[in-house]
């Protein structure tokens, strides 16, 4: 029987980083992936003369501090180098209707404040104070990472951390006196976390916004498949082994309830530690249920699944310039209010259209361009009675409405230029990722399941010995950088355990 120090189940972003980190620490590591490609969502596909990015909008980099758990620091520590291009603008946001607006925001701290001031005169000071809160929040998190906190100090010096950690983004922003319109513009990014800002944790949202603003969003040149392959290369260079088409069909436990291995391809493979990049729900479904702590099952049942999407990948036979498409990211909303955007999600509430050629020059052949439509959908929105024979019509009709809305809103014409199109739906994601309901964001970060509580309770909740988790369902929530981060954090814990048990 094969034996490894560590088995990583799933080669998504979290699994690849976790696997690479433990392999680099000298442990014999095996990554098992059910698909024939690494990366999970972080992949690409070819249609005709186009190579489409499957999922990435922009990486939330963190290059300012080399010792942090930002993408760049993680990659550097693992010896992974991927050439990236920085975006000059954060996004263009178009809100339709009477109180609507059409605003472009620059990236970079000063550029961002300048463009905010231009969009909403007089907002600069309040927005600046909001962004600057991040310095204290970072300091507080460092303090918390270094042992048991002194309650007086936490409530005193780091009182604003406690406040931001326990309130919604809307509540905190209101206190800074940020004008309504400026708040709404800053809230544009909520879709990346999937929870409207009246319920989205303030610490979580500010961390993301501040990082995009200060460190600028970045994109790899050759789609996120390049990120995944660079990680695989590093993993293999440390002696790690990765197997594709190798779905894990069972988690194996000993009589004491500790995870000791998995079954894949009909064979049992043992390991001292198992890291699951797949969502706990799926792990529990292929485990002896008596081995799963009741509290873990209750937690999984209590949680709500987060966003999924219908996405359209479109190759056009005209350049972005010829078509008059000027931006990389355009957020189109029918209301300035994020709650309304969320509620109207099936009816143009909020959707994103990216033109990769405007972020990565030469992303497709000269005289062509690519568009990526991201249309949010909650798991319960997918029609329960949709039949196989109606599926093609369903997805084409769905996307057609949005293409027409995009054309009307932007005043551009793309329909006649579609040379390639592929549409993915929760069915597609269910097929390739096997997530419950074909969901992408794993567990919703709403209400009590926010990142702060996930982090706090990660140390309190009862665990299955030798089994740990990383990925979008982890403590940092969804998104590339969050998944990479939880991969790095989980690896660190596993390495520490392995060293203790020597």
């Amino acid at each position, binding site marked *: 029987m*094969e034996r490894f120090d560590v088995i990583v189940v799933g080669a998504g972003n979290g699994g690849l980083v976790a696997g690479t980190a433990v392999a680099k620490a000298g442990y014999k590591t095996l990554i098992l992936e059910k698909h*024939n490609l690494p990366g999970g969502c972080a992949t*690409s*596909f*070819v249609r005709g003369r186009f190579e489409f990015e499957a999922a990435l909008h922009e990486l939330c980099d963190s290059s300012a501090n080399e010792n942090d758990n930002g993408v760049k620091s993680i990659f550097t520590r693992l010896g992974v180098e991927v050439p990236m291009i920085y975006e000059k603008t954060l996004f263009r946001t178009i809100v339709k209707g009477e109180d609507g607006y059409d605003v472009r925001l620059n990236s970079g701290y000063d550029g961002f404040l300048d463009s905010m001031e231009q969009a909403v005169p007089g907002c600069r000071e309040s927005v600046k104070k909001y962004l600057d809160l991040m310095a204290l929040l970072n300091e507080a998190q460092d303090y918390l990472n270094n042992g048991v906190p002194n309650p007086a100090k936490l*409530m005193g010096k780091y*009182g*604003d951390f*406690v*406040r931001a950690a*326990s309130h919604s983004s809307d*509540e*905190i922003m209101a*206190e*800074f006196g940020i004008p309504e319109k400026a708040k709404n513009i800053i809230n544009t990014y909520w879709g990346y976390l999937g929870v409207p800002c009246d319920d989205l944790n303030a610490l979580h949202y500010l961390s993301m916004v501040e990082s995009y603003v200060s460190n600028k969003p970045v994109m790899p040149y*050759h789609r996120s*498949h*390049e990120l995944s*392959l660079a990680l695989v*290369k590093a993993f293999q260079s440390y002696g790690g082994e990765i*197997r594709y*088409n*190798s779905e894990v069909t069972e988690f194996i436990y000993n009589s004491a309830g500790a995870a000791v291995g998995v079954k894949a*391809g009909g064979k049992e493979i043992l390991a001292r530690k198992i890291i699951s990049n797949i969502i*706990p729900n799926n792990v*529990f*479904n292929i485990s002896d*249920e008596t081995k799963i702590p009741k*509290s873990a*099952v*209750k937690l999984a*049942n*209590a949680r709500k699944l987060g966003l*999924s999407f219908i996405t359209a990948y479109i190759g056009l*036979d005209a350049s972005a310039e010829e078509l008059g498409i000027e931006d990389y990211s355009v957020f189109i909303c029918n209301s300035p209010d994020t709650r309304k955007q969320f509620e109207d999600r099936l009816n143009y509430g909020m959707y994103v259209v990216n033109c990769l050629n405007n972020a990565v020059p030469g992303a497709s052949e000269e005289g062509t361009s690519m568009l990526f439509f991201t249309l949010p959908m909650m*798991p319960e929105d997918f029609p329960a009675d*949709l039949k*196989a*024979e109606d599926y093609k019509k369903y997805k*084409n009709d769905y996307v*057609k409405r949005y*293409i027409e809305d995009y054309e009307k809103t932007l005043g551009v014409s793309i*329909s006649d230029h*579609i*040379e*390639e*199109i592929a549409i993915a739906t929760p*069915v*597609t*994601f*269910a*097929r390739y990722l*096997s997530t*419950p*309901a*074909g969901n992408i964001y794993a567990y919703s970060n709403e209400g*009590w399941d926010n990142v702060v*509580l996930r982090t*706090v*309770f990660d140390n309190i909740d009862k665990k299955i010995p030798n089994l740990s988790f990383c990925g979008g369902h982890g403590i940092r929530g969804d998104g590339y950088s969050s998944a990479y981060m939880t991969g790095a954090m989980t690896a660190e814990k596993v390495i520490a355990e392995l060293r203790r048990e020597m």
Partner: protein
Amino acid sequence: MSDLNNIPRADLFSMFFKRIKAVKAASDSPVKDLDSYPANRLAKELHPECQHLKIKKIIPFSDDFKCFVFEGDKELGTEKPAWFSAGQYLVIAVEIDGKTYCRPYSIASSPRDTLKGEVMIAVKRVNEGIVSGYLLDNMKEGDKILASGPLGDFTYEPLRDAKTVIGIAGGSGITPFRSFAKAIAEGDEDFSLILLYGSRTLEDAVFSDEIKALAQDNPKITLVNVLSEEKKKGCENGFIGKKLILKYAPENENYSIFLCGPQAMYEFADKEIAQLGLRRKFIRHEVFGEYFHPEKNEDYTADIDAVYNLTVRISGEEYSCSCPAGTSLLRAMEAAGIKAPSDCRSGRCGWCRSQLISGDVYIPQSVDGRRMADREFGYIHPCCSFPLSDVVIDVPPVKG
């Protein structure tokens, strides 16, 4: 003085309690399984990992051309064949002398036929075709066969393609067009199909009668037989070229051209189509089929008579075989009985994607369908890779 002074700090604790309460109140019965979600159920139905089929009926047109109607093998878990999009194909796996051979076959039946529990492919004898010969000569009704789920993107896409499609079919390339025509007649596709069907004689033009019958009842379907070796009333004579396309194409309106047929047909038709000045988006080919004779390319400079060692790693096990310079790595593995994944065998689908550990391979540019990062990091499609030295590759295991 902080801007946030009005925000109570104690809410941190009430937040903790909210979570504790929510988890406490939740059910402790096992989490819902994937089949309970509509999207996962539909994914399984539309994209089965494999289909266990049984031959329900064989329709012989000749010793060299037969249709195989399959039904689901319920005993092995396939209730009925999966729904598909007209124009797609199935990969059929057969075991011959202990070796597994896989080949893609376009689906000839309509998507709606799957609701009746049927799916049909057409098999034509190919020179030295191991699988076609085996299917034609050995398979009988009731025999079991393993097939893939429906695959391929030679499909009609309403947001991309023109409302009128000129179909250009040659020989057994008629197969997907039979499916398109039936799908139009049954209301599952909505476009006008003008089918230019090339064959030597009318007798060679299989499915003509059926498609003609569909055309009679449906103004969206037109069949034009184009005969190269006989003249017949109501048929065109010669090869399918620019003149014929223009004769049948709609005027002052965009049209798409869909081509499926043998290499020779593509070579001729592509030159003719190029003179029409159509935008690239309006011209779509079914995959070109397996690539032979890399030495015919100008950029191929190696010794075509050389024979190399091919070492194959699969899930930590190692196998080896020989591979002549003119044989694709996939064919060499197949001949040696080494099971490797493959679907389209034309460089496009990426299902055979493997890691090149060492050695050099020649990949004809016209069939290099790899991702950019795959080229950068040394991954290849063995179906279109020919050895230039001894080669070591890491191949994913065949699923299931």
